């Protein structure tokens, strides 16, 4: 009981913060920033305590709350931590204060509204991860649109209105079909079991005929694939990322994109396991296309933010590949890669924001030899670059390597059985690693080394606030990279359950350690 209260505090703290900040007088910008920051720090500490207390050896929900909400329909306020969401909740809580700190000197217009919206989206994101009720999940899932719409549209770059409308219209289209599918699923369960509930533990579409499962999974998958984003549905991402203010990009890359992959993991695959198995080749193929295509597009961009944006498409491709492998190592790798990408891409966007604040340019061509001018900046940028490539000892390595290993693990039995597609896809996916190294190192080389030049030179190096933000991120990256066993131990049981649920009988065992 006492512990469930902590989880509720974690979720509702940003909401309380919203109310508090709204009530602050107008024009007291630094007060607004401090209140928001304290709120975020507080919820980070709560998340850290919960993470510590989370027991990876116990199956099922922990710190759970289950209160009826709309009794008539069996909708409940059901939240809880499990192995699938514990890392992502921690990531969200970790990035929260950094977003506020990163925007400290970047946002000057409508400061109050900005911070209210940041708290709002934090609330909605935590809610989406924690929700154990389909209705609650959908409410939080859709609620994320409103603050993001304003964050991009109000504090974004030149084409912000175009970008934000594109973002909202893309994501809303996916969710509208998901809504139809989830109502259908609940009504079907109602028809077969006799009582209506949105409780995820009692919902499973496995009794549905395969054809219906395929339809429903397609509707869910469309929504999630837009959010990830996976290959043909990714076109909103570069616009949204480039036009969003730094804080918005960090939230977007750090947490929001994981909503898609988390959705597949939490809802899409487990609710419709047979359909998921049937659709796996398609999902794997799209994941691999995303990996390679995202990397290729990143290679030819001239805007630093765009490079990182396209790299996100590529990196999340690994997550999908790992999940779709239905191999324990692959699934674990996918979860780790989600966290890692959140840290690395979040950190890179923060760094782009820092340099942009100084020069108001994001063009690669404008920079050169920053290593001489901004040594501290360059050290951090190099570390994040290497983490993005997936160098051993960084978090990127553990995630990417395990996801690929999972893909090969799953591909080999299929290959022996005469199906070469998974193996071919896995081999192609490896080439993404090379491409990733190519575009990131090339970017680092172009802006950090060579002839020293930058708009508005001479530039001041990172100040204490900025350094502190990056130290926190880099520390987390190394912590996961050096000791991946710690987070993996928390997720292993849940990953195994997921695998058994989705893969059904055909489990090929590969042990994690």
């Amino acid at each position, binding site marked *: 009981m006492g512990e469930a209260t902590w989880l509720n505090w974690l979720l509702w703290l940003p909401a309380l913060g919203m109310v508090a900040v709204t009530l602050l007088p107008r024009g007291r910008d630094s007060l607004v920033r401090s209140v928001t920051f304290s709120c975020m720090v507080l919820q980070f500490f709560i998340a850290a305590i919960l993470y510590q207390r989370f027991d990876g050896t116990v199956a099922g929900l922990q710190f759970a709350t289950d209160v009826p909400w*709309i009794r*008539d329909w069996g909708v409940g306020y059901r939240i809880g931590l499990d192995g699938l969401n514990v890392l992502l909740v921690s990531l969200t809580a970790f990035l929260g204060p950094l977003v506020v700190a990163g925007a400290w000197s970047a946002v000057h217009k409508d400061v109050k509204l900005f911070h209210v919206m940041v708290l709002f989206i934090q609330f909605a994101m935590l809610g989406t991860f924690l929700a154990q009720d389909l209705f609650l999940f959908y409410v939080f899932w*859709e609620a994320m649109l*409103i603050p993001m719409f*304003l964050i991009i549209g109000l504090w974004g770059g030149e084409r912000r209105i175009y970008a934000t*409308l594109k973002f909202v219209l893309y994501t809303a*289209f996916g969710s509208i079909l998901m809504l*139809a599918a989830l109502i259908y699923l609940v*009504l079907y369960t109602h028809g077969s079991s006799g009582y209506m509930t949105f409780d995820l533990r009692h919902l499973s579409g496995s009794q549905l005929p395969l054809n219906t499962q395929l339809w429903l999974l397609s509707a869910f998958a469309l929504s999630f694939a837009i959010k990830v984003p996976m290959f043909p549905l990714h076109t909103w991402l570069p616009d949204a990322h480039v036009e969003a203010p730094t804080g918005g990009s960090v939230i977007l890359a750090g947490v929001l994109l994981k909503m898609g992959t988390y959705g597949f993991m939490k809802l899409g695959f487990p609710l419709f396991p047979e359909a998921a198995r049937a659709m796996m080749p398609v999902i794997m193929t799209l994941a691999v296309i995303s990996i390679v295509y995202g990397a290729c597009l990143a290679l030819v961009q001239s805007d630093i933010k765009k490079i990182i944006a396209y790299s996100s498409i590529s990196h999340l491709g690994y997550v999908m590949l790992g999940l779709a492998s239905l191999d324990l190592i692959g699934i674990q790798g996918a979860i780790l890669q989600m966290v890692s990408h959140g840290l690395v891409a979040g950190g890179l966007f923060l760094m782009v924001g820092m340099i942009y604040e100084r020069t108001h340019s994001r063009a690669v061509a404008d920079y050169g030899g920053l290593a001489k001018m901004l040594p501290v900046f360059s050290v951090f940028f190099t570390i994040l670059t290497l983490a993005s490539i997936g160098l051993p000892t960084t978090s990127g390595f553990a995630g990417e390597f395990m996801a690929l290993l999972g893909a090969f693990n799953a591909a080999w039995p299929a290959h022996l059985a005469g199906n070469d597609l998974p193996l071919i896809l896995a081999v192609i996916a490896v080439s993404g690693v090379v491409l990733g190294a190519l575009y990131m190192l090339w970017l680092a080389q172009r802006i950090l080394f060579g002839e020293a030049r930058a708009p508005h030179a001479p530039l001041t190096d990172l100040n204490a606030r900025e350094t502190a933000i990056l130290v926190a991120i880099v520390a987390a990256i190394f912590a996961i990279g050096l000791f991946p066993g710690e987070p993996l131990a928390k997720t292993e049981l849940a990953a195994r359950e997921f695998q058994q649920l989705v893969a059904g009988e055909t489990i090929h065992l590969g042990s994690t350690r």
Partner: protein
Amino acid sequence: MNWSEVAKAMLPEHLLLAGMVILLTLEVLRGRPRDGFVVAFLALAAAAAAALTLHVESYTGAPFSGHFSVGPDASLAKFALIALALPVVLISRDDFAETRYYVLLLASLYGACLLVSSDSLPTLFLGLELMSMPVYALVLLAQLRADSAEAALKYLVLGGTATATFLMGVALLYGWSGSMSTAVFAAALGSSDTLPIAGVVLVVASLFLKAAIVPFHGWAPDAYEGASVPVTAFMATIIKAGVLFAALRLFETAPVTRPLVDVLAVLPLVSMIWGNVAAIRQTSFRRMIAYSSIAHAGYLFFALLGAGPGRAQAVIFYVVVYGIMNVLAFTVLPRGTDDERSDRLESLQGLYQRRPFAAIMLAISMLSLAGLPPLPGFVAKFLVFRNVLAAGYTGYAVLGLVASYLGIYFYLRVIQYMFMNTATADQPAGHPRRLALAASLLCLAPAIVLAFFPGWLLDRF
């Protein structure tokens, strides 16, 4: 006839009538304009309280057996209608000093209450007409623009057509069954004969006309634009709610069978699509709201597809949420001296900088009308489509949801204007008025309750 039952069951109506009588007396005795507003407000508050009390007591009674009966659901519907009129009256004072405005408003509400309680087709007809007729005059009363008269005339002529169609349908139903009870309609729904089906189609067509369903929607944009802000708010919410309650009264819980399903599904579906698409092109706020209300009428009639108790739940919840949110928008709308200019969407540009409260309220209203969670509009939309899916019309439900998606854009554009664009030219200052503020708070409070505890209203059925 049991007089005490007549007194109690019709208490909300009596209070409205008393308000009208006092208003007319005042008009004759002396013309202090302020009094009209106060009397109307008090009469409405008393009537709303009476309806709420009847609902809480679960009072049932039939003072005029076979014509007029009251149950908890009817009392709740009456309470919703009368309570929605409270904020409308609050924003009316600046536009209308005349006592007759308030008399017309109360008369229209009296009609709406009558139709909710009606048990026979003549009573229903009486209620429907009593509700509509004062509005023809209300549209013209402000006379803000030259084309207000044209709008009112258009509304009058088409309203008259609806009346004739309704009567024709009723006549056919009477000819088929020999009864004037509202139950005839529900019975006719299950029939496969041509006569009752024709009667049903005619009655439904007249309701479509009054609720502005495509292709009977032509009057709505002109009337909404031509009327003054409070009258538009009244038309968009209370009149629409009244028509839907009339439909609910007729359909009861009877299932809709095959040949009628397509009539009842396709036209509302087309309304949703057309309303949402046409709203995108509008440059006038009230015109945009008119198209939005055409789309919302579509959702509301969609809710009738599902049979059983879920139907009343969906319709009443939707009407309440939609009404609150629409009125909320109108209470905070900045108003200038030049109505045509202050009605332009561009006049909302940079509203957040000038009047943050109004901008946030308007944003809440728009997002709720768009059906985005966590706002109550989402629960309402959810309820409607759950009903349609539960009735087994998966295809219609999916198409309807896609149609509702089309609507998101123009609601978001209003927010874009208010928050993201900067004010260009001299925009109406629209200083906040205390009454309008009270009106918006009156809308906001139930909206918050319904957003977080929709069960509070849903459990009342």
